């Protein structure tokens, strides 16, 4: 049972020690320094404090599981009525990479109603086995029924790791499954790597993206992670099929849920910023709402869309669906042009995987220039109108 022990006699400067803790978990009472509930066990006090003052003690042996018994990397197939969400293919690509390190099979878990015909497509992406639960009761996502199916799949097949897309469904289902299996789950991983002992390294932005955390699940199986759409690369579709489809059954009474779906209302289809290859981003350098028109015009000329940073959503100038960043959307366009965006880390975390980043900003110290591939030190109000004219002229000439 790991814990921190404080050796008061070794503390040279109480205040200096207390200040080390970024969480305010060290406090002094009656001349004695103690640790309160705010402790996150980051152990900075051990590393940065006076030698031996805070000691990390791990005296009980943790129950260890037999990692040999857990084989395979499983991917949850995210879909609506059989239309498979592209994040699924991206995860299959990553699962294949991870599985190759430890020579494990890659599984897909597909649950829904009348989906058996849709399984074939998955076999073009290098899956070893597709487990299909096809049942009318699984027609709509109901968290209790889906969790039960997931649990059944895990208990039958013991995959060592499970990847789930961080979609509306995945973000609810993965935690519920993790809690049922009493195992760890890491949200929104940006990097996944496999150790030879089958431990999955899960790297994700923490503290609003200011810090990257490398997370392990050393004593629990399955290891679970969610990954956002457009973070991993989808593999090429192979002309040849490979792998097998395994139909699975579950007792109907186990699928009961305390939720009744009464109606489904289609929303007006709109192109999301995640789906756009080109994004022109408006930041706080935009002086007034009308000026957004010029960025919209540029985006249209480039076949893309406009997006924005958080302050513009807060000002009510742009719809929240257009916001990039940790509290908005994660995008991975081929080209992104940021206009008057300072580049707060929360924003950058939502777009730094773009293939080509051009930043326009007057402020030479703007942090966006640490992320951009092409840093334009200039005034967007001078450049954008000229660029629009030039593109229009070029189009007319051709």
């Amino acid at each position: 049972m790991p814990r921190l022990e404080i050796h008061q006699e070794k503390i040279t400067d109480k205040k200096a020690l207390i200040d080390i803790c970024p969480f305010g978990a060290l406090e002094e009472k009656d001349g004695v320094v103690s640790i309160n509930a705010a402790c996150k066990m980051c152990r900075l006090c051990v590393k940065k404090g006076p030698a031996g003052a805070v000691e990390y003690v791990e005296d009980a042996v943790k129950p260890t599981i037999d990692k040999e018994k857990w084989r395979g990397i499983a991917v949850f197939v995210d879909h609506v009525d059989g239309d498979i969400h592209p994040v699924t293919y991206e995860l299959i690509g990553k699962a294949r990479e991870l599985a190759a390190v430890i020579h494990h099979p890659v599984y897909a878990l597909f649950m829904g109603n009348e989906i058996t015909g849709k399984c074939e497509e998955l076999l073009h992406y290098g899956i070893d086995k597709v487990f299909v639960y096809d049942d009318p009761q699984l027609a709509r996502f109901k968290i209790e029924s889906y969790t039960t199916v997931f649990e059944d799949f895990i208990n039958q097949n013991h995959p060592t790791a499970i990847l789930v897309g961080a979609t509306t469904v995945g973000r609810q289902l993965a935690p519920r499954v993790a809690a049922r299996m009493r195992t760890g789950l890491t949200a929104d991983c940006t990097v996944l790597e496999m150790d030879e002992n089958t431990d999955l390294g899960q790297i994700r932005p923490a503290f609003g993206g200011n810090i990257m955390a490398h997370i392990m699940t050393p004593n629990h199986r399955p290891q679970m992670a969610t990954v956002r759409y457009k973070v991993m690369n989808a593999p090429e579709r192979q002309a040849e099929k490979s792998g097998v489809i395994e139909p699975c059954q579950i007792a109907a009474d186990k699928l009961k849920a305390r939720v009744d779906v009464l109606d489904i209302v289609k929303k007006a289809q709109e192109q999301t910023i995640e789906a756009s290859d080109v994004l022109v981003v408006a930041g706080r350098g935009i002086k007034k709402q009308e000026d957004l028109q010029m960025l919209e015009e540029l985006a249209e000329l480039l076949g893309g869309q406009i997006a924005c940073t958080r302050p513009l959503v807060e000002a009510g100038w742009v719809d929240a669906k257009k916001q990039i960043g940790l509290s908005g959307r994660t995008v991975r366009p081929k080209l992104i042009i940021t206009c008057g965006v300072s580049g707060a880390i929360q924003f950058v975390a939502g777009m730094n995987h773009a293939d080509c980043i051009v930043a326009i900003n007057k402020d030479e110290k703007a942090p966006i220039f640490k992320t951009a591939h092409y840093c334009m030190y200039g005034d967007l109000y001078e450049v954008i109108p000229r660029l629009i004219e030039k593109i229009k002229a070029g189009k007319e000439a051709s």
Partner: protein
Amino acid sequence: MNILVCIKQVPASSKVEVDPITGVLKRDGADSKMNPYDLYALESALRLREVHGGTISVISMGPPQAKAVIREAFAMGADQGALLSDRNFGGADVLATSYTISQGIRKLGEFDLILCGKQTTDGDTAQVGPEVSEYLDIPSVSNVIKIEKVEDDGITVQMDLPNELEIAKVYYPCLLSVDKDIFQPRLPSYVRKTETKEREIPIYTLEDMGDKNKTHYGLNGSPTQVKRIFPPAVNDHREAWHGTAEELTGKLYDKISELKFI
């Protein structure tokens, strides 16, 4: 209707930096606030109580100073609250946090409806709500953008899905994670703040939990471990463009042409 709202104290700013020399996290520990997404959950509870009556309880987990967010909830109109705070709860990951909260909820009382915000601004995982519902063995629905109907045995809500809205009736007891903008949160009232200044906030420790097994809480109850933290990678491919507006426009134009977007 007995409603419980789960709230969390988060840093007022997510600005954190790693000191490049010492590698220490630089974080202003003093400034904190209620997780902004929780305000929507609390507001939803207040609106439901206005129409259907009942009581609103709040629960939070954190260091003793997290009592501040419970006071804030009182000033907005919550009736009672409790704080889960114990050294043994420290260092908890999603699983251990959810378990602790579910134990705390069992201690606090029986609720028809548990409301959570969409996510917190410091953890950003949106996972605790669904995990708590699993531990309590109750149904849950996330991304709730509208409450349509309240009945004796359940609540009908709109769930926001990428391409459609799902209208579903969830039977009590249940947990809902509400989206931003379900209702506009009210401001805390000064009068209520003064009135509730003396209201007691019980602190629940490990001793108050139904399950007193230390290994189920905090760091010990957490399957995930942080191996290391490091600053995010900085992209080093960089080209600086200086010059007149014409020159800059030309450079950008050429780049866009090269990428075949024009």
